[in-house]
C-alpha cells in the first residue's frame, strides 16, 4: 500500500499544476497548494476514480491535506 501516497501525490500535482516538491504530506490543498473549494471537490472525485472507492461528502469535507487523503484511502479503499 506504500504506493497510495505516490498515487495521491501524482493526482494532486496533475490537478493543481503544482511542483511535486511542494506536495508534502502535511501540505494543505487550500492554504499551501493554491486550491479553491471547487478544486478540492474535483480532487476528491479524482481519488474516487483512481482508487475505486466512494468518499461521502461528510468524509470529503475532512480531507484537507495530502495526509488526510492518504489516510482515508488506506483505511477505506480496496486497491
Amino acid at each position, binding site marked *: 500500500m506504500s504506493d497510495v501516497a505516490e498515487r495521491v501525490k501524482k493526482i494532486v500535482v*496533475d*490537478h*493543481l*499544476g503544482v511542483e511535486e516538491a511542494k506536495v508534502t504530506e502535511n501540505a494543505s490543498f487550500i492554504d499551501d497548494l493554491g486550491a479553491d473549494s*471547487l478544486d478540492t*471537490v*474535483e480532487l476528491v*472525485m479524482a481519488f*474516487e476514480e483512481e482508487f475505486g472507492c*466512494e468518499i461521502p461528502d461528510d468524509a470529503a469535507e475532512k480531507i484537507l491535506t495530502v495526509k488526510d487523503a492518504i489516510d482515508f484511502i488506506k483505511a477505506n479503499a480496496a486497491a
Partner: protein
Amino acid sequence: MRRVVVTGLGLVTPLGVGHKLNWERLVAGESGIRSISGFDASDLASKVAGQVPRGEGDGLFNPDTFVPPKDQRKMDDFIIFAIAAAHEAIKDSGWVPQTEEDRELTGVMVGSGIGGLPGIADGAVTLHEKGPRRISPFFIPACLINLASGHISIQHGFKGPNHAVVTACSTGAHAIGDASRLIMLGDADVMVAGGTEAAVSRLGVGGFAAMRALSTNFNDTPEKASRPYDKDRDGFVISEGAGVVVLEELEHAKKRGAHIYAEIVGYGLSGDAYHISAPAEDGNGGFRAMRGALKRAGLNPEDIDYVNAHGTSTPLGDEIELGAVKRLFGSAVDKLTMSSTKSAIGHLLGAAGAVEAIYSIKAINHSLVPPTLNLENPSESCLGVNLVPKVAQERRVRAALSNSFGFGGTNASLVFKEFA
C-alpha cells in the same frame, strides 16, 4: 451625451489570431473555411467549417499562451477564445488601470450565442454513463456564457460593469452597442466588449444542419461553401472565434494619448416579431435597425461608404437584407460599397457582429473594402449594388455600417466613423 471611441482591437478567427494578420489575409482574399477536423463529421450533412487554426507560430492559436493548462479544463473553448481576443485588444489599447477608481470604471461585456455547447454535450454523456457524482464541479462555470466576461475581469482586475449579451447571431453587435451606451451614460469610462463562440462540434453542426441552415453542396470544396449573394449559395458555414474591442470615453482616451481607431456614432436595435429563425420577408426588422443607427449617428445614407452585411450565404436571408439596404439607401446605393466578410470566415454566430465591427473599422483605417469571396454569379436582385466581388477595393470609407441579425428576430446595426 459622452462620445465613445475604439482604442483596442482583438481577433481570434478562422483566418488566425491577431487583428493585423486577419486584415492582411482578409483583403488578400484568403478563406478560413476548411473540411471539419477534430471530430467525426462523416455522418453530418455539412462537413465544412471555419475553425480557428491551432498550433504554435504566427497567427496560430495556442491556448497555453492565454490560460495555464491546468485551468483549461475549467472553461469551454468559447471562454478561452474570449480571453485571447481580450488579451490582444487590451494590450493594443495600452489601458492599464492604475487606481481603484480606474478599475471600477473599467467593465467587460463579452457575450456568446450558445456558450459551452461542447461542454454541455460532454456533461450530459457523463451524467448518462456514470451518474451525477461524476459531474465535474467546473461543469457549470465552464459553460455559462457570462463566465467569458467573468474570467476577463478576474484576469485584468476590471471591477466595472460585468455583463454578457445573448442574442444569437446579433450578440457581438449588441454587446458593443450596449457597452458604448454604458460609457455614454457614465456607468464606465472603458468597456471591453465583443462576442465569442465555439460551437463547431457534433452537436452544434448537427443542430444547425437539422434546421437546414448550413451549406451542404460544397463539402468537397470548403473554400467555395460560403458565397453570399451568389446564385449557388445554399446555407451558412458554421465558424468559431472571438472579436473584442476596447471602447473608451473620448476625453479619457485623449488624456492618456491612446490611439483612436474610430468613433462609434450609431447603434440601432429592433425585433422582427415574426418567426424563430426566418427573417421577416419585408426586411422591416433589419431596415429599422439600420435606420435607427443612422438616426442616432445623425448621418444620412449618403454618408455611409461601406456596409459590412450580415450576409450569411442563406438563400432567403441575403435577399431580404439586400432589399432592406436598397430601400433605406435609395439613390445613395449607387455610391455604396457593401460586402460580406462571412464569405472568408463563415458565420461566427455570437462572435460575428464583433469580428465584423472590427473589419468595418479596419476598412475605415485602411481605405480598403474587403471582398465578398465566391461571388461569381450574383443573384438578379444584386444588380446596381457594388458587392465587391472576389477582390478588395480601394476607397475612402468615412463611415461604415455593420449589420447583425439573429434567430428570434433580433437585429442590431452599428455605425463607426473615421476619427480625425
